[in-house]
């Protein structure tokens, strides 16, 4: 270990000596926006992007494309590292004017406040329904970044989306929808209550096929056998799904005998960020709508 | 059936007592664990300048008695006194300055050098912060010299031969400068030469330092030759006690070990052997 330490040191020394100019100006190189917003929570970051005011930095930017997908992360947004292991040096070097955090980062607030004022916005407040809460958070966030008009526009566009969706759905023969994500080859999460998925479903005027209780964050972890709840449902699995799920399901008589499986009323939609805000809800609604239009017969 | 056979007058009377040496007195000592009586009503007395050999068959309670004398085990009933005072009157280090104990199983490897191991014997003499004084240094050097370990002082104890290791531990006991030494089978793992060497060492220590020594032995012939007094235990009781010279006698040995014995005489030395079946 000592040796390793020494080697590292030596290399760093050499590097440091060969690049004195860089060293002098390193922590604030050109190209970094000053006075931007550091969004340390994806839900808040996606809201900012949707409002046309993308943040200067966001945590875990590398995974964004896989789990949030939409809205796309604009180029030039700095990756601030892991959400649970904040890179304070980097956040400080960004010199943000505002830092957005979720309650899960509350314990770092005193430290963050020394960099810039930080605002704690929770998409999980149970006083409201999830969507109503997210609308409130969107407006609140907009007030912090002077984007109230954009927020108004975004929210009315969302209302328009719902009107359109209701019109399109009303032409179809509807069924209750069972929203799940497969965890492994024997278990799934099924969404209800306060989850973003279930609330968006309700917002579209659709019925949730899951009536049993769910946990605080709006889902229940169940064995796949518990999905056999009602005959006339449409099962929709949100990606990603584990690679061996299809084989496990097709070899299970319990699964293949289920009426909705027999009738082919099951399928998948692309990933949507489960703990997201309005943009995720919007993405979910659009994906759901598109999917159901291909699946359901006209009334 | 196991009545005490007094083959000789009580040991204490014919050994000269020295005023400065400590004397240990165990009275009516009994130790029982659960329903098992390990020791039953034992009386013994250890006096300065006297090597007391403790013999007896396996399970007789020899090690238990040694532990009792060394205060490693507390009595179920009875009394232990050191210099006329009950054991409880001594603090741990106070006690260790008077009685030193070498357990039967000692660590084979300690990771210490001989010198370092012997130094640990000075533990009870250090000041509160453990400064090593000139007295301590002298005691360690003397212990090393007496045991002949001074040439090996910087060797690791892990690399010593069995005999050297045994001597090293005895050196540690000597450095402790106690006036009573309790040795639990110090020679059982040694070859004949080291057995003789160790026993000679034990005897000379008792004479030079005027200490009293309690030593557990298996070899009755060695015990008879090197000890002054013998105490024989059987089933937790004292089966016989007397001067070492009178031990080698079938009449004494047979009831202790329940084995038929025969005695051969080689010059002035008498040796006892089990009788072969014919």
């Amino acid at each position, binding site marked *: *270990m*000592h040796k390793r*330490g*020494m080697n590292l*040191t030596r290399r760093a*020394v050499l*590097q440091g000596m060969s690049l004195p100019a*860089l060293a002098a100006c390193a*922590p*604030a190189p050109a190209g970094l926006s000053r006075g931007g917003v550091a969004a340390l929570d994806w839900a808040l970051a996606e809201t900012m992007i949707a409002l046309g005011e993308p943040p200067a930095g966001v945590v875990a930017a590398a*995974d964004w494309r896989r789990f949030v997908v939409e809205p796309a992360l604009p180029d030039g947004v700095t*990756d*601030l*590292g892991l959400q*649970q*292991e*904040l*890179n304070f*040096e980097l956040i400080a*070097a960004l010199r943000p004017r505002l830092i957005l955090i979720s309650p*899960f980062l*509350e*314990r770092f607030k005193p430290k963050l406040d020394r960099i810039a004022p930080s605002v704690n916005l929770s998409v999980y407040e149970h006083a409201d329904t999830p969507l109503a809460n997210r609308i409130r958070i969107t407006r609140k966030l907009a007030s912090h970044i002077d984007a109230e008009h954009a927020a108004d526009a975004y929210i009315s566009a969302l209302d328009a989306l719902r009107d359109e969706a209701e019109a399109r759905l009303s032409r179809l023969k509807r069924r209750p929808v069972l929203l799940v994500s497969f965890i*492994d080859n*024997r*278990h799934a*999460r099924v969404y209800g209550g306060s989850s973003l998925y279930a609330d968006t479903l309700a917002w579209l005027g659709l019925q949730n096929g899951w009536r*049993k*209780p769910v946990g605080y964050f709006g889902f*229940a*972890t169940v*064995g*796949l*056998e518990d999905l056999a709840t*009602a005959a006339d449902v449409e099962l929709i699995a949100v990606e990603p799904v*584990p690679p061996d799920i299809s084989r496990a399901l097709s070899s299970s*008589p*319990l699964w293949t*005998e289920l*009426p909705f499986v027999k009738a082919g009323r099951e399928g998948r939609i692309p990933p949507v960020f489960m703990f997201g805000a309005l943009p995720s809800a919007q993405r979910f609604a659009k994906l759901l709508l598109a999917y159901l239009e291909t699946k359901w017969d006209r009334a | 059936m196991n009545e005490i056979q007094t083959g000789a007058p009580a040991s204490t009377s014919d050994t000269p007592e020295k005023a400065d040496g400590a004397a240990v007195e165990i009275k009516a000592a009994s130790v029982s*664990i659960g329903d098992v009586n390990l020791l039953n009503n034992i009386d013994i007395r250890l006096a300065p300048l006297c090597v007391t050999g403790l013999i007896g068959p396996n399970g007789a309670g020899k090690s238990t008695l040694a*532990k009792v004398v*060394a*205060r490693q085990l507390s009595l179920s009933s009875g009394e232990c006194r050191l210099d006329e005072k009950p054991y409880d009157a001594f*603090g*741990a*280090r*106070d006690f260790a300055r008077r009685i*030193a*104990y070498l357990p039967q199983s*000692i*660590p084979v*490897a300690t990771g210490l050098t001989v010198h*370092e191991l012997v130094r*640990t*014997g000075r*533990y009870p003499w*250090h000041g509160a*912060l453990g400064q090593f004084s000139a007295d301590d240094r002298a005691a360690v050097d003397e212990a090393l010299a007496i045991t002949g370990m001074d040439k090996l002082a*910087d060797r690791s104890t892990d690399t010593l031969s069995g005999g050297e290791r045994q001597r090293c531990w005895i050196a540690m006991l000597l450095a402790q400068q106690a006036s009573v030494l309790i040795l639990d089978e110090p020679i059982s793992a040694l070859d004949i030469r080291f057995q003789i060497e160790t026993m000679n060492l034990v005897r000379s220590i008792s004479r030079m330092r005027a200490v009293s020594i309690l030593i557990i032995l298996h070899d009755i012939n060695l015990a008879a030759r090197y000890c002054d007094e013998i105490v024989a235990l059987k089933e937790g009781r004292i089966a016989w006690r007397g001067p070492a010279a009178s031990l080698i006698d079938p009449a004494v040995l047979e009831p202790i070990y329940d084995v038929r014995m025969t005695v051969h005489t080689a010059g002035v030395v008498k040796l006892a052997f089990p009788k072969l079946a014919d």
Partner: protein
Amino acid sequence: MGQSLKRTLDPGLLSGALSAAAVIFGAILLREPLQTSLAADSVEEQFERLILLHATLPRITMAILCGAGLALSGTILQQVLRNPLVAPDTVAVNAGARLALALAAVLAPGLLGFGRDLVAIAGAAVSTLLVLAIAGSRRYSPLSMILAGLVVSLYCGAASTVLVLLKDRYLVGLFIWGSGSLSQQSWEPAIQLALRLLACGLPLAMLMRPLSVMDAGEEAARAVGVPVERVRIFAVGLAVLMAAFVTSAVGVIGFIGLAAPALATLCGAERFVARCFWSTIFGALLLVVTDLAVQVTGGDGGAFIPTGAVTAVIGSPLLLVFLSRLRSREPQLLAVDASMPVRTPHPARNAPVWAFLAAGALLCLCFLPLIGRAPDGSWFILPANMFGEIMPWRLPRTLGAAGAGGLLAIGGYILQRVTQNPMASPEIIGVSAGAIMGAAIVLALGGAASEISLGLAAAAGSFAALVFVLNIAFRGPAAPERMLLAGVALTALVDAAVGVFSASGSPSAVLLLAWMAGSAGGVDMTMAASACAAALIFLCVALLGSRWLAVLPLGTPVAAGVGVRVPLALSSLFALVAVMTAIATPVIGPLTFVGLMAPHMVRLLGVRSAPAGLVASALTGAALMTIADSLARTIAFPLQLPTGVLASLISGPVLLLLIAKGRKQ
């Protein structure tokens, strides 16, 4: 003395009672479905029948198979290794399988589709071999085996934690698997498992006779012509394979493999064949009863309670029961293994060692904090004019890590010295487990309000654990060993609890994992300075006790013989270690291995005397953690890794090397 256990239970009676419990729970669970599925007209009733036929009944079958398989595996392992504490859990079968599955999920998800079995078995084999290799150097002595198992488990856990933090969204399933759910949707997995267990059982049947002879001990078996080594390798291999099959089928079912053989022994099954028979029966019944109880009481709702975690919570305290029950049967269990102590080589050149250590530590502490990465990713050395800007962020974490590293290293040195066991470290005496429990409770109750509340909860947990562990330790002889074992039991218990919390899928669970990973982000200057000050103060305190440390390794009789009041000395030293651990844990997390590694390095450097060892350990620990912290800041930039877990990831392989090297000498 030396008598074997008294026959306290009747095996027939016990299995009867368990069966009765199973029937009662089964009746509650099955009454309704059975009634409705007989008629089965409506769609709902058809569902009931489907669930009964293809979920409930296979699940019961699966519980029987898994329980029997794990119990038999545990019995055989115990017989072969002559060790009543060995079980699939304690030799890290599960931890290895879990890590392998996590790695596969992140690196090669296709592999999982191909076969979870193979991945899990490969992982289990590697971790078991590691444990055997480490414990083999101590002749598989029971305590060494358990400690080696725990260390390997903790290491696998650390690696899994890093994966989860980096890729948590991929690994939700891992938590459920790790807590062992018996949920079934078809007969196929049960049939598959039955075939596999059978395939293991046939060769095992042939090993029965040679294994029975080992009742009389290894030497005796060898004397009557049993090829002990070969039998041992085959039997361990088959036992591990059985456990790995079960684990890959349903996930980690905790402590059945320990509890069932224990019950068989308590029932007086002295002979090996009888032990195998009863243990298999008990294992099957125990798991069925537990699983039925979980289903009956759990009902439906958001709370998902995996059966494997329940058995672990019930089963891990069994280790404690063993302390008192099996003492007479296994005297070597608690005996200090004096023949194989922690060895120290003997270079007679102490001055260069000190110069090297001091210079190294100083260099690490002064220079490493200057190295960093710029926002564009390039390396740079902090120029003096930027200290004001960067150091407020960097200094607290570095100082905190160094201070905590020093504290843990001192603690580790004391523990290894007193217990003469090279696997003893503050991580595994249960104090860290207590800290985790405290933090978990705070997070589960309402999220982390502040760094202070987390720290306080962790400290409270540590002290509760300390009181518990010391209480157990001093209730009988051989306090150091009892303490280590109590720590192992507590760690297993907390691990199970954390597993349940994680399986719930709550984002707070990720917070807990982040905290457990030793996130240095929350450390502020006050905390860091206190850790450093504590390290200095407690180093001085420990130095006052260094005379004890010189004498205690020679064993209780010798130590008492030279006038050490052994219980007082031990409890003071243990309390000191626990306090130091409790201070270090909120700063650097519960798992670093620095307390394990620093003393090893110090010994290999040839530092022998206790005071020098304490100072050298403190320096080494501080230096190691500074290095770990610098690496954590920079290697994955812009990501920062958790310092504590990074330290343990680096330490693991190094530790193995050190142990191997120490053995050669």
